[in-house]
């Protein structure tokens, strides 16, 4: 639409700027904080003039925090790895389980189909607090207490419904004739699913996978209750800087920045697929 007026463009520009400021200013502020000591962060009034320090990051990365109160051991990098491992594996498994199911709900009208789909969604709102405690008993009997496998299993409660419902919508938007054409051309159901349905739903899968990854990454109650300290994610790890002798805002800010980094990288990577999906106008004839 080329006939957008200048006035409209100005208004759009102003609106986008407002949006970016609102959503990104806190992030910008956190980034600034991550280069400050507590002393400069806690100035009255706040100011953006400060002498930057890398001490927060070096403390997180080397795992030692030198402070007047003594040395603190920080397991932050381990937490970061746990977060990454738990989120990535959970999303991967959720994709493996969720995409075929999403496809089934999108393509087939089958008895109990909607009921099964709804049941799967309803897991999303099962109260985690209450489920987790009895669950720890069952886990003990199954030998899953304090194992990554157990955690990844529980993480399916976050990832699976999300992937299922978002990807389902995308599958439904793909004309079934495209798949029919491929099958009639002489390809099996499985090959059609793999070569046609999945690639065409890629933007949806990328979006759902990314969101599931983010939600898994942000969770902390599961690991907190079901696993010991060495399997805690970064969300629990970052709280370690809330200490009796004060909140280490600089380190929390640095922890947030470090914990955002992998997700951001993933999002930028997934962006490729999200964009690729945009040109699929033909699919949705």
């Amino acid at each position, binding site marked *: 639409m080329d006939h957008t007026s200048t006035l409209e463009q100005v208004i759009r520009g102003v609106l986008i700027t407002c949006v970016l400021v609102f959503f990104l200013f806190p992030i910008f502020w956190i980034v600034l904080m991550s280069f400050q*000591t*507590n*002393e400069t962060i*806690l*100035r*009255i009034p706040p100011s953006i003039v400060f002498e930057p320090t890398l001490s927060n990051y070096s403390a997180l990365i080397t795992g030692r925090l030198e*402070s*007047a*109160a*003594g040395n*603190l*051991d920080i397991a932050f990098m381990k937490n970061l790895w746990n977060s990454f491992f738990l989120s990535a594996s959970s999303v991967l498994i959720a994709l493996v389980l969720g995409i075929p199911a999403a496809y089934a709900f999108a393509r087939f009208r089958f008895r109990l189909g909607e009921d099964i789909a709804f049941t799967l969604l309803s897991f999303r709102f099962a109260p985690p607090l209450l489920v*987790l*405690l009895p669950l*720890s*008993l069952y886990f*003990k009997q199954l030998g899953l*207490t*304090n194992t990554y496998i157990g955690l990844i299993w529980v993480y399916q409660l976050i990832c699976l419904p999300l992937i299922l419902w978002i990807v389902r919508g995308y599958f439904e938007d793909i004309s079934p004739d495209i798949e029919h054409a491929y099958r009639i051309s002489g390809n099996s159901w499985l090959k059609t699913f793999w070569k046609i349905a999945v690639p065409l739903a890629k933007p949806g899968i990328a979006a759902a996978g990314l969101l599931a990854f983010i939600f898994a990454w942000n969770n*902390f109650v599961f690991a*907190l*209750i079901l696993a*010991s*300290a*060495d399997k*805690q994610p970064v969300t*629990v*790890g970052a*709280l*370690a*800087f*809330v*200490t*009796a*002798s*004060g*909140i280490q805002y600089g380190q929390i800010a640095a922890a947030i920045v470090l914990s955002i980094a992998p997700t951001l990288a993933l999002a930028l990577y997934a962006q490729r697929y999200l964009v690729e999906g945009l040109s699929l106008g033909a699919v949705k004839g």
Partner: protein
Amino acid sequence: MYEKEKGLFDAFVAGKLSRRELLAASAKLGISAAAGGMLLTQAQTRAMAAEFDWMAYKGTKLKLLLNKHPYADAMIANLQTFKDMTGMDVTYDVFPEDVYFDKVTAALSSGSSEYDAFMTGAYMTWTYGPAGWIADLNEYIKDPAKTNPTYNWDDVLPGLRASTAWNGVPGGELGSADAKQWCIPWGYELNNLSYNVKMFEKAGVQPPKNLDELVATAAKLTKDLGGPYGVGVRGSRSWATIHPGFLSGYSNFGQKDFSVADGKLTAAMNTAESKAFHKQWVQMIQESGPKNWSTYTWYQVGTDLGAGASAMIFDADILGYFMNGGDNKEKGNIGYAPFAANPKATAPTPNVWIWSLALSNFSGQKDAAWYFMQWASSVEHDLFGARKMDFVNPVRASVWKDEEFRGRIDKSYPGYLNQHDTSAPGAKIYFTAQPLFFDLTTQWAETLQKMVAKELPVDEGLDKLAANVDKQLKDAGLG
């Protein structure tokens, strides 16, 4: 090592010599202070080894659940000593304070045998004990076969020993003869004033002596300083708002949370005196408390003092202690004062928070775990932590007498020893032990919030609170 010197240090460790005497005697023997320190550590191990088989559980693996706290840091720093002495292996899970008690509840309510011993507060044992999650430690302390002869349980401050012992009867007096020892005090905090000396000088005020003065001084500070506010206290919707300064002041007027008669509890927070106290307290917050008071927890109260946003706090003494160090802007500017809210009171009556060690009932190796607990709460470790680490406040009388510790504190934290020594005799838990502790204190905090926000008049609010509390006590079969 010369036998004479060894004898000298062993005598000190056994408590036969005071620190001063030891120093004098070592000087005579020509031992330098530094070498003296080394000898002392060796003596610790040797003394504890005497007449007790520390190696009885050699090879056993213990696992602890710890809160991220300077006390835990001090223990971890000294843990090798224990491992060497006992041949046991000790691992630990450290969780951030924000989520620590959730983790404890999760682990214990599921009957997890993963952890043998864990850190706890005394209030929490009012839940853990009746729930059957923790062991009565009297069975260990009083058993010479299990506890080493130099453990010296009676050295632990009596108020703290009593505060961590309860007979499990709702309303039952803490430390009564039939009480069970649910946990061992490890480090504790009492509530007094910590204040910014420079700000006080600037405004020309002295640390207030009672609540009237506190309200007036805080108001004057707020007005005169032009920026920082007068007094920081906690205000979040939590039991933690009630237990520090608030309850300390409240108790000083002789007020109780409940009255107990015939084993039944009734709310006691709506007496005339209580209402008067609440009014003053609410007025103080409204006039000179933090603007965001109702979100204030330990952290905000401390941060404000350390960063110079508040002129004083009525909260844990060690919070003021922490804010005098680290990378706080006001480090070195913090002073300490004992505080008795009631002008008629003879001494402060601070309520206390006691970080303690408890023994999990689900542990498969309780005897071995007790070995760890008695070491971690021993004079020797307490001394080590108090001298070298931020293991304050120590819970043992003998440590408070230690000159090195006193010297260190007096030098860097002027007035700290005085506030502690003045208040320690009256320091104990002033709450009535009962299972609805967390429910009812949270409601109390909620009521306070409504009063400060002027949504509810004080008198009416307290009457309502009392009625509500009575109903819940009845529902639970306690009232």
